[in-house]
């Protein structure tokens, strides 16, 4: 779906007309606005954020915070997902707890995380890890449950032990779905990281946006906003492409519609 943007000129018409319309509007109403900025000003703002190092520094901070949190969430979520997916009792024992804990919105943990870790990377990891833990837990569990029974029977007949079965049969069989979980979680980690930075943490792109707003620099603010959008879009695009490439040979359509 994302490829649609490059596929047809018609998709470009709307964004282009918005840009040209905005530029024209500012040309004929040359007022200094604290809220909005002409596209040409935004481009200059973008160049400025690049030159003074803001863009690189904040992008690094956000991506690092998101990635580290994602890694923790993935490790914990996948591990718990495997246990729950494999053992019936673990599934039943955890069912109520998962139901109760999962709906806690990640942002509710921002104050707690702040209290516990103070400002900095660690509070960001914690919130991102909480948010990404759940998709990994749920999707791993589902992925394992949806493995063809026949495949499990075959692995038993071959006399594999439990660990061989997990690593040789189950995880490879579940790989496409696990990758889907990763793709969703990557997007989520970026969203949560930026949110944490906007709400509390004085670092990264989210904070950069807030600073630009507070210092009445709408040009810089919109430049960063568009950059955040591009970043999210590009990450998703790369992962969708990778997903298609990696798993094209099995279950046609799975990668496309997941």
């Amino acid at each position: 779906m994302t490829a649609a943007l490059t596929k047809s000129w018609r998709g470009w018409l709307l964004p282009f007309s918005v840009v040209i319309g905005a530029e024209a509007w500012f040309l004929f109403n040359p007022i200094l606005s604290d809220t909005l900025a002409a596209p040409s000003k935004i481009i200059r703002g973008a160049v400025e954020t690049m030159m003074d190092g803001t863009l690189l520094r904040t992008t690094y901070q956000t991506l690092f915070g998101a990635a580290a949190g994602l890694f923790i969430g993935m490790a914990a979520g996948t591990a718990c997902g495997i246990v729950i997916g494999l053992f019936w009792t673990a599934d039943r024992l955890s069912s109520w707890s998962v139901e109760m804990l999962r709906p806690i919105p990640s942002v509710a943990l921002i104050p707690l995380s702040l209290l516990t870790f103070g400002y900095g990377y660690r509070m960001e990891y914690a919130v991102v890890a909480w948010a990404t833990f759940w998709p990994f837990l749920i999707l791993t569990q589902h992925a394992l449950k949806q493995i063809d029974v026949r495949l499990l029977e075959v692995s038993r007949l071959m006399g594999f032990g439990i660990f061989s079965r997990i690593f040789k049969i189950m995880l490879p069989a579940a790989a496409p779905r696990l990758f889907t979980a990763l793709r969703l979680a990557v997007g989520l980690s970026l969203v949560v990281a930026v949110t944490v930075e906007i709400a509390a943490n004085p670092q990264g792109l989210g904070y950069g946006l807030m600073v630009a707003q507070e210092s009445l620099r709408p040009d810089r603010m919109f430049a960063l906003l568009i950059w955040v959008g591009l970043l999210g879009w590009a990450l998703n695009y790369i992962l969708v492409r990778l997903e298609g490439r990696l798993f094209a040979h099995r279950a046609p359509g799975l990668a496309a519609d997941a």
Partner: protein
Amino acid sequence: MKRFRVLDIVLGILGLLTLLWIWHLVTMLELIPRVFLPSPAATIAALEWGLVNGDLLPQTLATINRMIQGWLLASLVAIAVGSLIGVSAIARAYIQPTLEFLRPLPASAIIPVAISIFGLNSSMVLGVVVFGAVWPTLLGTIHGFAHVEPRLVEVSRLLQMSRWEFIYKIGLPNAVPDILAGMRLSLTVALILAVVGELLTAQEGLGTAVLHAARSYRAADLYAGILLLGLIGLVSNYGLAIADKRILAWKN
């Protein structure tokens, strides 16, 4: 079958109780300082006191109010606009790529823009909630309208149904599952953005309540607030799941 379900419930509760017991042990042994992790008993007490004597109840209602208001408004806009875009293949060709590009944009990133437009007040929060909650339902509605069974399009042509009749007799009912899926996601997003908005603007609500609790090291109050936010998420999820089942009875 029934025996099985009873066992499920028993095990589920057992698991939850075990978790609570571990929590209790951790605080008893002070493995984690009480400032960061209060005991379950203290949390429950704070919850009870806050709801009965304190202002936890009005704060909860304020957050719920904000979430539901923004969500309803967003859903209305999303379904109306989504139907208009979804019905026409031409409109989709022009607009959908832009929407697909905007979708991965973190809704919270729009907050600075909203602040500069509205200021730090409750309309800003509502605006952000609406903006964020519009996307899932909007894209769901468009998807639902774009994927009508071609056979049904033929049936509508054979019966010489008007475009309007097609929209509300075939297009809209066909899109309902996608719309509902979008609305469920939207509600989660609405809660998240309502809380973020409160964290920033100090408007009355649970977001503000937990932030104040954290700032003044009242851990039990903090956990009580988080618990309530989880409860709001849980109840709203269940409510929509039940509505889903009712409305989509024909799917099973």
